[in-house]
């Protein structure tokens, strides 16, 4: 029983980590991965050189307790995305 949505994307609703070609690492709830874009709801971002602490430390904490949803909706161009993986994969 629940509210289901208009996509059969296997990552739909899953909290994912998105590595990019730039300094940003995104974590958020995946809505869909399309040929030209990735759509996230409720995401947060680590920016290399701007966010305090190392990327590994930031990701370790996020994998443990979650993240603050600072960005309600985000579209990333697919050619900027190098990987999309469930955040659960980063939990130890």
């Amino acid at each position, binding site marked *: 029983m*629940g509210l*289901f949505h208009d996509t059969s994307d296997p990552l739909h609703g899953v*909290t994912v980590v998105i590595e990019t070609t730039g300094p940003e690492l995104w974590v958020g709830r995946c809505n869909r991965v399309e040929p030209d874009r990735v759509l996230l709801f409720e995401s947060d971002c680590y920016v290399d050189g701007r966010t305090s602490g190392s990327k590994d430390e930031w990701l370790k904490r996020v994998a443990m*307790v979650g993240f603050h*949803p600072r960005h309600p909706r985000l579209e990333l161009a697919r050619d900027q995305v190098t990987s999309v993986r469930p955040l659960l994969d980063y939990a130890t």
Partner: protein
Amino acid sequence: MPYDPALVAPMREELTRLGVQELLTADEVEQWFADSDGTSLMIINSVCGCAAGQARPSVALALQHAATPNRIATVFAGQDLEATQAARAHFGDIPPSSPSMALFKDGELVHFLPRHRIDSQSAEAIASDLTAAFDRYCAAPSGA
């Protein structure tokens, strides 16, 4: 914006029929937390079928385990806003997520299951995570 109460009612009942106490106001939440003796599980319910659709059945499975918390309550994120905010205020610096579950022992948060450890998991896997925490924190000391 909260969903139609008629749509949400079955999602509430999926927990309340298990004996989970539903807290609808901030005052009810504070009264529930005021009794901090023993072990308590707070469930942040959600309409999201992607995650909560597995979370609620996982609670049903976990409550069949030998060791369970003394008290279990739930608030509904996106529906009972003040109650949810009041509950999350007891989670320290843990970011908000829903669904999620927080286990307390004698008033101290000892185990937290955020959304991302629910949303890609089966009900059985989530229940396994919960029961491992129940064994650790809720089981009677051996020899008792």
